[in-house]
């Protein structure tokens, strides 16, 4: 009786270790190293998410020239048509090489949603601008009184003739100050269930009646805005899908983010930076005990990240070939943000006295170390947002409780 024969690999990451995938990885890595402008790389390595429009556009166009822009898009719409495995490796290499994040609102969210719900005319009008990096989008979902409870949004779109007339405001609009267009959810009916009566609209931010108010974060960056609508007119054809049926489209759009919510690649890069900082910044080679303690915490974070990565791959690439991720993916976002925040906390603590200082220009011998140290508190502060936005970690736990555990 020989029942046990096949040598299966238990190591789920082995799928990225074929000769083909190795070659692809090497190609991406080399390309990033050779083509990513240094001034952009440096900002990303500072963990900045408030990259100026020019930087994002410049890098997007470099990728576009290579055929790699919009890595999640099929060839049909000008994307590279990557397999899921390729896309996973591609985004890993970009993160490890300190390249900017792919532009989430246009290419990550709206593009695929238009592919799924848009008319042919909408596809032709919208997708090329995103693909070429010429049109920047932002998302108008949250409102001052509709955060985690998104469906309670109240920003109104009244139908008047062949137009919607918008009144109200949208809150926490990331990149609202550098975007050309906004897609968003607007209330077109108030009579039924709050999830009904929501319409998905796209609008030109240059339309009369729009005011964008910057909202500074407490560490000083400008990433988000409040966008006010005062009788803003939007043509009917800028609606996506059916009137009043925007909620389903929004749910589809929000489900697209299965790649990258765990932020494993970026956390690996952050952890590597932390390790090299600790190694480099100690001119006196003293306080070994303290180094031991840091070493332990680094090791713990490495292990946590390892567990998260394997879990992500297990979830993303299921054995039966079904690459649909269910609600269990919420845990990737929860753990991903928790680990990322812990990395930044440790990086700040390791920077010691340097971490006290706010950003400043300086030259001189140890300017680099000073700079890295002074950069260290910013991401600790700034990344608190990640456990709040895109469905707070409390909401994610509610989702798992309900949809996975049946509570």
């Amino acid at each position, binding site marked *: 009786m020989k029942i046990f024969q096949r040598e299966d690999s238990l190591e789920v990451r082995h799928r990225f270790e074929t000769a083909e995938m190795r070659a692809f990885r090497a190609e991406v890595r080399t390309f990033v190293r050779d083509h990513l402008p240094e001034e952009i790389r440096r900002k990303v390595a500072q963990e900045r998410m408030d990259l100026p429009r020019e930087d994002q556009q410049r890098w997007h166009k470099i990728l576009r020239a290579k055929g790699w822009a919009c890595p999640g898009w099929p060839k049909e719409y000008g994307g590279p048509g990557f397999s899921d495995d390729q896309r996973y490796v591609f985004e890993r290499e970009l993160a490890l090489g300190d390249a900017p994040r792919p532009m989430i609102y246009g290419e990550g969210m709206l593009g695929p949603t238009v592919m799924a719900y848009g008319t042919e005319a909408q596809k032709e009008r919208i997708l090329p601008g995103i693909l070429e990096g010429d049109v920047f989008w932002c998302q108008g979902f949250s409102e001052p009184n509709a955060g985690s409870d998104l469906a309670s949004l109240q920003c109104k779109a009244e139908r008047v003739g062949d137009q919607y007339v918008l009144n109200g405001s949208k809150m926490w609009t990331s990149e609202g100050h550098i975007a050309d267009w906004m897609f968003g959810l607007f209330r077109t009916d108030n009579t039924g269930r709050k999830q009904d009566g929501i319409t998905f609209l796209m609008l030109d931010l240059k339309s009369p009646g729009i005011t964008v108010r910057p909202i500074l974060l407490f560490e000083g960056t400008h990433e988000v805005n409040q966008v006010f609508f005062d009788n803003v007119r939007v043509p009917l054809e800028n609606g996506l899908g059916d009137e009043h049926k925007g909620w389903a489209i929004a749910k589809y759009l929000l489900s697209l983010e299965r790649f990258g919510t765990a932020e494993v690649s970026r956390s690996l890069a952050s952890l590597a930076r932390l390790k090299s900082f600790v190694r480099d910044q100690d001119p006196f080679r003293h306080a070994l005990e303290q180094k031991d303690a840091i070493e332990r915490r680094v090791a713990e974070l490495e292990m*946590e990240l*390892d567990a998260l990565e394997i879990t992500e791959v297990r979830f993303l690439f299921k054995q039966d070939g079904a690459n649909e991720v269910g609600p269990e993916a919420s845990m990737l976002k929860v753990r991903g943000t928790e680990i990322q925040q812990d990395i930044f906390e440790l990086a700040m603590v390791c920077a010691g006295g340097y971490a006290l200082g706010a950003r400043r220009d300086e030259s001189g011998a140890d300017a680099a170390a000073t700079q890295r140290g002074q950069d260290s508190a910013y991401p600790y502060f700034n990344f608190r947002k990640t456990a709040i936005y895109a469905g707070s970690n409390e909401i994610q736990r509610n989702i798992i409780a309900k949809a996975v555990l049946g509570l």
Partner: protein
Amino acid sequence: MLPTFTDEQRLLKESLERFRQQDYSFEKRKGLLAKLGSKDDPVWAQFAELGWLAATLPEDYGGLGGSHADLALLMEQFGRGLVTSPFVPTVVIGATAVRLAGSEAQKAAILPGIAEGRTKLALAYLEAPGQLDPSIVATRVRSDGDHFIITGNKIAALYANVADHLLVSARMFGQLGDHQGISLFIIPANAKGLAIGAYRTHDDGWAADLHFDQVHVPAEALVGSAGSALDTVEASLDAGAAAICAEAVGAMWCLHDMTLDYIKVRKQFGATIGSFQAIQHRMVNMYMKCQLAQSMALAGIAALDSSDPVVRRRAVSAAKVQVGRAARHVGEEAVQLHGGIAMTDEYAAGHYFKRLTMIRLMFGDEEYHLRRYCALSR
């Protein structure tokens, strides 16, 4: 737990599930524990009959040539069923040591017996309670003509009292903690001069403290080359550690499921306690710990195949740390969310918690493995 299943693995999994549900229910287990490890232990006989003892052994020695995926599968199901046996000391640790370092004659003498259920092994390596490193060997061995003479003490040797043969590490030269100078011997359990003080462990298994008083063993008892057995001992312990990590994952999922079921029906203040958000979020945290521990256990077992011992050690240590911490969290929370009922002997949860706690302590606790991982990262 496994990312892929072959047809054979599906069959194996079914037989394991059938066993733990039909033959090893929590009610039946109590009676079966009385015979644990004895000559007529019906559980061990059933293991042999179902091919589980042979599953992962090499085909040349009566085994079925299974992979580490099969080991993971077996261990996870043992964990789910709270299946208590000398499987790990015999089939995982003992057989690994013999496979890695044994002579042809030793392999031929030992491995088929394991596969058939005739032979049980135990490894005696631990000497001081808080000294978990296998290089801490004060037990001495010296040559005496064509014999070796072993003198010293070992503690907490799992199932040493029910084993037919003991694998014993002893120092031939060098100082305590030296990596060189340690030899490994395989000796019969009834060797003259060997005193075995057996006791039950908290998880209803067995362990023993051993006293070697001038125990004479023949030259053929040496496993591998003299003075350089530490790698073999470490590799065998890593196999054992990875195996019990997979077992722990099974036990954790079982506790997870029990707790989830319980909070869905247990009412307080007119509502099921599972409807309270604080309980829900803690249940979610348990769920996440189980998932993450499962990932690490997979990676730990997978690394047993690695040809690079550093890769293996790092992965096993990472698994033991993460699984151990998760085991504590899940075990404690399972008891707490149940409340009083889980404190009782008649309810299974407490017994799973005890097993998970023993797994944490076996083959290096989280602190030991975190240190080992750090040392390997330098």
